[in-house]
């Protein structure tokens, strides 16, 4: 028994001496893992918002380039009228990034002034992916209700056709045009729809949602 104790003591001492050896020689490697996340930015391109029909020039100017346009019920071909009565103002706000040389904005504001039944226009704007993650346009909402390209929507005072972009993918730095057409309603154009009333102010909101491409 005494011999076993001595053997154990010897083993501990030998292992201890080996341990000293290990403690003196050492090395290590470090794996660093910085994580830079990308950004998902959908915005309107600076200078890209404008009405295809009509201008920002109010009456009494009657230069033909500023004359109004109209279209038939249901929104068909546009016909130029012979007067400048209504006019449009527009602008981008809520800056949210850059896309190349252009600033990007989150909100496009459009105001149609002094319009009347039959008055029609088409609004166009470019949206761009100003982030580093591909995105997909997954939802377009008009006054909170989902709409799809080519869908004809009738509100109380106007009808509108949204043009495009739903389901499309924008790679980083991609941009594309989106547009919609609208026509102010005459009372009686559609059964049960009041039509535009005189001297009123109406508002509408179109939201374009982009989502990271791998979650769409």
């Amino acid at each position, binding site marked *: 028994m005494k011999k076993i104790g001595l053997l154990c003591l010897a083993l501990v001492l030998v292992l201890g001496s080996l341990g000293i050896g290990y403690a003196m020689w050492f090395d290590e490697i470090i794996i660093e893992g910085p994580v830079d996340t990308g950004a998902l*930015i959908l915005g309107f391109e600076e200078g890209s918002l404008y009405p295809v029909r009509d201008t920002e020039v109010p009456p009494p100017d009657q230069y033909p380039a500023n004359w*109004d346009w109209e279209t038939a019920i249901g929104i068909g071909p546009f016909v130029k009228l012979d007067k400048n009565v209504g006019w449009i103002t527009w602008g981008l706000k809520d800056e949210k990034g850059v896309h190349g040389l252009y600033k990007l904005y989150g909100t496009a*504001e459009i*105001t149609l002034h002094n319009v*009347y*039944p039959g008055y029609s226009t088409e609004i166009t704007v470019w*949206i761009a992916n100003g982030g580093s993650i591909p995105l997909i346009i997954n939802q377009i909402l008009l006054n909170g209700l989902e709409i799809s390209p080519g869908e004809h929507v009738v509100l109380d005072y106007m009808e509108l056709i949204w043009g495009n972009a739903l389901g499309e993918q924008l790679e980083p730095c991609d941009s594309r045009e989106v547009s919609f057409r609208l026509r102010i309603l005459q009372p009686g154009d559609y059964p049960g729809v009041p039509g535009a009333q005189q001297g009123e102010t109406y508002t509408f909101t179109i*939201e374009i949602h982009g989502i*990271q491409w791998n979650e769409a």
Partner: protein
Amino acid sequence: MKKIGLICLALVLTLGTLGAAYAAWIDTVVISGTVQTGSLDLVVIRTNGDDVFKDLDTGALVYCHWIQDVGGGKQYSTPPPANGLLVAHTTSELTADDQVTISYNNLFPFTGGWGGFITSALIHAQGSVPMHFKVTPSITGIPASWVSYIWFVYNSDESLHSTGSLLSDLDGVQLHHCMKVSIGIIVTVPQEDEAMNQSGTITLTLEGIQWNEYP
């Protein structure tokens, strides 16, 4: 106990998947639109008429024209004789929004002035949307041959745009903001006994139709 555990596990997994969906990166742009509509508005702002007096001092017939702004009183553009007897007279009253009632009283055969007794209404286009003008006359109780018209259309700078004597010529005339139309109704009583003690009504309905929807 084991079942409850499974349910809890399923719940956790479901909520987890929901969490993953909510956590997706999204971004939104907004098009904010405002539509301000214009208006069509025809407003009667003034009436005019004729009164006929007999000057009791001279015996002469005195022809006096009056003007009455809506909401105001009747004012003569030429003063009646100091000692005059009012024989035939016309009055106007704004009886309802956009409605004027003009009365012809105690008329007699008379061809002075415009060829009879005249009253007129001055109508102002106060809307912001151009319109085509349309007038529809209706005459009851008296022969239509007693009634004739004279009209003037004025530009917004008060210069004369056009004039005529047929109401049908007014159909389709375009009125822009601030233009005015004066329509005179002339009643000529013929020199006939049958014309005495007659009573009738003349109604003119004036419509403005937005120019891009006319006809």
